[in-house]
């Protein structure tokens, strides 16, 4: 990572009529970083990404990408970006390789360059043996990999990934994460939006938590967990009606308790100790699970709501 700032936003705002989608956010992303926007649906992540991708004019504030102003140099910026949108947006009537070929030409690559890039990217996306197949019948994971490969056709300096693994099965997600690590190692700057905390933890060096168009916290996944949560969490489930009765005794023994409709989340430095102390007080849950804090807990603490609803 260098100190070169690739993305700079100051008081960045986006409104659609009365509705404020992005409400004055400040963001700095440096070359080589993997930076994440974490938040629930409707938090303003995609609106932010569309402004960064130079396909949505800024309503207010300052935005610079690669040192350039998207209102003036949109095409010059887009020539150096790769964009993997939330929906695949492939031409499903064309073959896998035709999709790459067509897109490479959109960036003004010569035929020869497109051919060479196509071979490399099919290898990268593990689609070499499907290169002549039409896109339409491919699996969701394959289409996603093709979309990412297509976003890389111009050898971008910054890759924007909007919800890259939403809708994929666990195995396909891991294959995709593996490809993204590889890009990161090669020095590509990644800017990712996600509402999956495990994805943010896996991929991001640094992230901001967004809610209602604002940034509510910023840091590395570890820093955020240290700042806004405890080391461990005990999840307690009770028989019907019992949860409320025990809430008082549980709260007395924990740093913080979140009461969800179906369970209590007990925040504490040492889960096993807390669990033993609860047993000592006669609290008998149906089940008890001790786990590490995650970004989900950070989000719950910051907003009082879950990421995935």
């Amino acid at each position, binding site marked *: 990572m260098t100190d070169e700032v690739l993305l700079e936003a100051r008081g960045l705002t986006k409104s659609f009529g009365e509705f404020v989608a992005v409400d004055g956010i400040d963001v700095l992303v440096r070359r080589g970083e993997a930076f994440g926007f974490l938040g629930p649906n409707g938090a303003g992540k995609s609106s932010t990404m569309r402004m960064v991708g130079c396909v949505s004019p800024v309503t207010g504030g300052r935005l610079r990408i690669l040192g350039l102003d998207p209102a003036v140099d949109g*095409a010059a910026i887009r*020539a150096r970006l790769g964009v993997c949108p939330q929906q695949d947006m492939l031409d499903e009537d*064309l073959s896998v390789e035709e999709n790459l070929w067509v897109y490479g030409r*959109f960036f003004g690559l*010569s035929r020869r360059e497109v051919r060479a890039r196509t071979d490399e990217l099919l290898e990268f996306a593990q689609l070499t043996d499907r290169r002549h197949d039409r896109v339409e019948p491919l699996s969701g994971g394959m289409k996603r990999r093709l979309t990412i490969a297509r976003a890389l056709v111009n050898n971008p*300096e910054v890759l924007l990934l909007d919800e890259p693994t939403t809708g994929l099965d666990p195995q396909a997600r891991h294959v995709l994460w593996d490809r993204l690590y590889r890009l990161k190692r090669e020095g590509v700057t990644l800017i990712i939006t996600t509402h999956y905390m495990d994805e943010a933890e896996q991929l991001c060096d640094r992230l901001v938590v967004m809610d209602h168009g604002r940034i509510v916290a910023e840091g590395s996944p570890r820093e955020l967990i240290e700042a806004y949560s405890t080391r461990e969490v005990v999840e307690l489930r009770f028989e019907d009606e019992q949860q409320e009765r025990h809430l008082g005794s549980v709260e007395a023994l924990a740093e913080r308790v979140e009461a969800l409709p179906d369970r209590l989340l007990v925040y504490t430095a040492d889960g096993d100790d807390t669990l033993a102390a609860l047993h000592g007080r006669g609290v008998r849950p149906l089940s008890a699970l001790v786990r590490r804090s995650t970004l989900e807990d950070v989000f719950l603490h910051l907003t009082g709501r879950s990421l995935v609803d």
Partner: protein
Amino acid sequence: MRADATQTAPPSGRLQPGPRPAMRLGERVRAATGHHLRVYRRTWRGSVISRFLSPLFFLAAMGLGLGALVDAGSGGVGQQSYLQFVVPGIVAYQAALLGFGDATYPVLGYIKWNRMYAATLATPLGVTDILLGHLSVLAANLAVATAIFVGVSALFGAFASWWVLLAVPVGLLTGLAFAVPTFAISATIETDNVFGILYRFVLTPVLLFSGTFFPLEQLPGWLRPMAWLTPLGHGVVLTRDAALGRWPGPVALVHLLVIVVVIAVGWVLAHRQLTRRLLS
């Protein structure tokens, strides 16, 4: 310079880190056109067959069927046989229909279904490039279809003059006068139901009352202006004059101007609607 050096295109410089050479308008439009040609490559066989068959159907029905009746009953239209009267009109009519059709489902598809236009705008290409790329392939398709229609009909003696070759550019322009405004509509609507409504309540009356199948003088006076409200009426008159090798005077330029104005207004609307839809 060595021979091999001239054969190898220089690298574009657009894969390097840092600022990259901007694409010129011609390059951008060629790239957009390249996409549509790829798609067309998979479907052209079917469409070419239908291009040859459609004039044959019309010639059989109008020339042999209806034409025989009209010629026997009233001795043709004016000095002409009904075949020679009606085929130039149908040339303009099929161009209008094709222009409309090509700007409906395919355009809505790229905007809403596979969303390739949104993907295109993430590259250095812009709305103008998308429009020029798509419309130039659409225009080529119109020109080829009209040329085939004229060529096949000529074999059956449907035209009196070689000037009928002018029907190809006139057909192209008439088709665009339907395609470009329809593009604007496709860039606005959410569902394809609208296309059915447009076809039944706009296209069909336009096609019937534009002087395609019978002279406008047959209509009551108050209905005649219908023909001049849409570009098809103007296209039909121009095509018919070309087929006769007759110069109708400066009024031809007025007909042409109406068609060009419709295309220009359609362009402005299509550009605005596509921008609103995809770059908001």
